[in-house]
């Protein structure tokens, strides 16, 4: 049965009788995007998705040459950079896109937080978004080890020791992460499997869910914000704007890749001492710096345990924001949560800067 809005070409009619293509298109056309002074922040979610697509494409290309064993991992990455045609470009795109994806994700998440876009009926969007943040951090943690150079090895050695202080699950979780007692071949193959299979499959499901909700409920307008103009249809008007934002993002990515190509350090030597100035990637620096700031023992309790518990509680509170911000739930302004959000952004930025300044002092 062809609807009166159906396609006119033979192929279009054949497809329409077998796939609900026209229904999907009309579903997408229903979404309207509000236009107001904060509309600029709507682009960052799509930009994060774009960088994720770049990660998938470049990741698949890299996996054609990468070998996930301690003997061959480092050599295979060197092979990619030095021998494979445009290998250095694909590898640099993958590394820089990872950092830009994390940066874009944090901008998107904090803009949603400050605009209170987690209000009813978008609570599930917030929950799925925070889960995606944890997945992306997992991508970063597992991916960092794969080149198997000394920085990656020792950063992973330190990173996998952090959960050890947790009561009950500490030792077990560390053994699960490492695949044994030491960081070695088991850790590398585990990191590769998590990075290439488990996390992408999980991310695919959650991203689809997140986008579906976004399509159903559209973009939120913060309390007290007046719309400047009539809302824009997502398809095609806002979609063109999104595409332009993706082009700008891609140009920024190519600029970083060509001006600062991503290299590789010396091969990991588990018997050597840790290199001086070793630290994790910038998005783990707030945790790393907080651990450095807290004394090793506070009132007889391990400092690491205190930080781990604080981070755990903070993560749960962050997930529960739509349910504990009572003023936003009542469609009122929520200045307390705005101030808390700004303080958190300042703290995260300050710890990252401190971690880098610490090297220079």
């Amino acid at each position, binding site marked *: 049965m062809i609807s009166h809005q159906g396609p006119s070409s033979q192929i279009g009619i054949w497809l329409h009788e077998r796939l609900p293509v026209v229904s999907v298109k009309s579903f997408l056309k229903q979404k309207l995007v509000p236009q107001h002074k904060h509309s600029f922040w709507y682009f960052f979610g799509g930009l994060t998705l774009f960088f994720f697509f770049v990660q998938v494409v470049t990741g698949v290309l890299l996996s054609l*040459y990468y070998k996930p064993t301690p003997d*061959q991992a480092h*050599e*295979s990455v*060197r*092979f990619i*950079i*030095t*021998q494979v045609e445009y290998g*250095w*470009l694909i590898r640099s795109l993958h590394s820089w896109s990872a950092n830009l994806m994390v940066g874009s994700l944090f901008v998107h998440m904090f803009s949603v937080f400050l605009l209170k876009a987690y209000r009813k009926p978008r609570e599930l969007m917030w929950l799925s978004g925070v889960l995606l943040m944890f997945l992306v951090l997992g991508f970063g943690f597992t991916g960092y080890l794969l080149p198997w150079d000394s920085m990656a090895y020792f950063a992973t050695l330190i990173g996998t020791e952090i959960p050890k202080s947790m009561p009950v699950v500490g030792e077990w979780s560390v053994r699960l992460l490492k695949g044994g007692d030491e960081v070695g071949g088991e850790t590398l193959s585990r990191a590769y499997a998590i990075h290439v299979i488990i996390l992408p499959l999980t991310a695919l499901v959650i991203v689809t869910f997140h986008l579906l909700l976004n399509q159903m409920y559209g973009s939120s307008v913060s309390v007290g914000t007046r719309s400047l103009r*009539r809302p*824009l*249809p997502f398809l*095609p*008007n806002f979609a*063109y*704007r999104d*595409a*332009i934002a993706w*082009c*700008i993002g*891609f*140009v920024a990515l*190519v*600029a970083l890749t*060509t*001006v600062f*190509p991503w*290299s*590789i350090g010396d091969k990991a030597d588990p018997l050597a001492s840790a290199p001086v100035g070793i630290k994790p990637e910038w998005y783990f620096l707030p945790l790393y710096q907080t651990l450095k700031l807290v004394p090793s023992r506070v009132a007889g309790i391990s400092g690491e345990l205190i930080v781990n518990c604080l981070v755990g509680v903070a993560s749960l509170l962050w997930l529960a924001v739509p349910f504990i911000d009572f003023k936003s739930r009542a469609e009122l302004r929520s200045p307390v949560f705005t101030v808390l959000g700004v303080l958190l952004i300042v703290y995260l930025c300050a710890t990252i800067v401190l971690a880098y300044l610490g090297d220079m002092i």
Partner: protein
Amino acid sequence: MRYFMVIIAGIALWMQGSGISRVDTSKTDSLKQKDSVEALRPHFVEQPIKFPGVGTRMAYLAVGVVTVGGLAVLLNRKRRRIDKRLEERHA
């Protein structure tokens, strides 16, 4: 004699199972395997990390900026036309 023959047969069967009486092809097998693996394995020879020169990389950047930037310009033109059509529809 029969018991002695049974014992001899048992020892012979055990030696057969343990591979002592078989021809030792393990060395030649592993050599053959090594050849085929070597032939297939890419040569991960230690190469110094050397990226293309600054000029080449700037050329790549220029190509990227021109193609993707040009695409952005075209998309923007199309966006303006679509927005104008939308405004006319609502006017």
